[in-house]
């Protein structure tokens, strides 16, 4: 099982690097004709930390779903981790997914499995060796501070701990790209702080992080690149940026 670690590539070019995301004229229309995204052009480079902001329904989640190829764009070209997603064959999708960690507002942990099993899950399903699993899971639990909770079930954890567990799972295969869809949406501010600190740490280790959020405080505190969506359009892209309330 090759661990696709974020090897620093000398030139993460405009498109094609293992940890870059490039959108060229990307639109997504849901039938009958709800326009979720309209003509998005953007490039996210290796090692960046990007906030995706905008009101509910602005297209943040759709943006992320396109990146991990849960959906295909209606128009335009999308290049993620060196792959042209509009041409990626369905049977190659799993290999793209191994390059992208994803966390959600609702954590999506498996309730009938322990923290350890949840974190080990991506390793098991991608057929990592037992030794690799034994080596890697403690490191991941250490990273997110859940070492003592390895045997707990998700319902025995607080919301913040559940999200940490989800983060450890997302990082299990050491993906060069991490997507977070409202990861702090269900958490108190102080727990949210813990999660964003963790995301920053993951980013410092070289992972490209894209976080969709409408947590104004977090965005303004962290002073990172901000891509603001409104009604499916990319209305501003500033680095560093601040939270915008209006289009």
């Amino acid at each position, binding site marked *: 099982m090759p661990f696709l670690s974020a090897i620093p590539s000398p030139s993460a070019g405009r498109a094609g690097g293992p940890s870059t995301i490039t959108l060229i004229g990307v639109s997504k229309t849901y039938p009958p004709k709800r326009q979720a995204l309209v003509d998005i052009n953007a490039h996210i480079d290796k090692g960046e930390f990007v906030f995706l902001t905008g009101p509910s329904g602005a297209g943040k989640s759709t943006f992320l779903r396109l990146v*991990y*190829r849960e959906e295909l764009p209606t128009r335009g070209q999308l290049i993620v981790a060196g792959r042209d997603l509009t041409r990626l064959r*369905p*049977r190659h*999708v*799993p*290999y*793209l*997914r*191994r390059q992208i960690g*994803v966390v959600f507002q609702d954590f*999506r942990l*498996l309730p009938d499995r322990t923290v350890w099993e949840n974190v080990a*899950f*991506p390793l*098991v*399903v*991608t*057929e990592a*060796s*037992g030794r690799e699993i034994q080596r890697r899971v403690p490191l991941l639990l250490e990273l997110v501070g859940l070492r003592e909770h390895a045997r707990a079930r998700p319902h025995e954890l607080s919301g913040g701990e559940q999200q940490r567990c989800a983060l450890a*799972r997302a990082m*299990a*295969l050491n993906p060069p790209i991490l997507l977070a869809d409202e990861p702090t949406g269900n958490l108190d501010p102080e727990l949210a702080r813990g999660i964003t600190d963790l995301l920053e740490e993951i980013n410092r280790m070289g992972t490209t992080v894209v976080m969709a959020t409408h947590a104004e405080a977090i965005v303004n505190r962290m002073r990172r690149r901000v891509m603001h969506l409104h009604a499916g359009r990319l209305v501003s892209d500033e680095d560093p940026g601040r939270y915008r309330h209006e289009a």
Partner: protein
Amino acid sequence: MKLRTWGFYFAEAWRGVVGNGLMSFASASTVALSLVALAAIVILGANLEHMTRMLEAQVQVVGYLKPDFDRRWSDLLVQKVRAIPHVTDVRFVTKEEALDRLRSELGPDSVLLQAAEDTSNPLPDTIEVWVDKPSQIPGVVRAMRESVTSLDSVDYQQEVVSRLAALTRAVRLAGAGFIALLLLAALFIIANTIRLTVFARRREIGIMKLVGATNGFIRWPFLLEGMLLGFVGSALAAAAAWAGYRWLAAQVALGLPFMPILRPDRVLLPLSEALVAFGVALGGAGSLLSLRRFLRV
């Protein structure tokens, strides 16, 4: 593939079976019932065929000679009949031999025999004729009637043989239709059970897909679950066929000792193997049927 991966597959399959206990039970039972019916029809068909073959191998034409037949001519008679085309063998049976045979078939206490021995032997001398194909029997009988003047009457079993053959065909045909329906039902109930498991675990499948499990990987536990259900059902069916046919064979041996039936152990072993293989295949096919739509990325 790695051993631990198989461990994971089996653990997942087991989760599925136990997680939907009632449906698992229902589908294994349906498989069992369908396969028991299949086994019954296969056993019946095999026995009918066996009987047909036995009858064909027996004397096919018996010529009864007139009471005044002079035994000095018996060799000549045999030669004459042997010369008829399609005749493979001819035997002259005296009335004394015939009585002995009857005695051994009926047992020494038969009232019928007593009667036969009290008077003079009522049986005629006979000539037994074997023919290469049952379809040639009428021609041979005609030729015998023309050339053997001392022939009183002729008896042959072509009717029985051809009726038995027709019955065998009918049983097979009707059985095939009936079985096809049952198997279809079993297939769909397995597919449905697996669909329930898939539905119950859609969350897990979603996460597997999210973290990059291939469809092949996701498919295996469900495939195994279906195969497991098929295995349990077919093992039950094999056990039922085993017990049922042994019992039946014992009853027949007691009640109808002349009835030529196949020995249980010779039928049951290959039948059980076939049933289990078939059940497992059926279970696998049922899972694939329900997964086909679901697993598109």
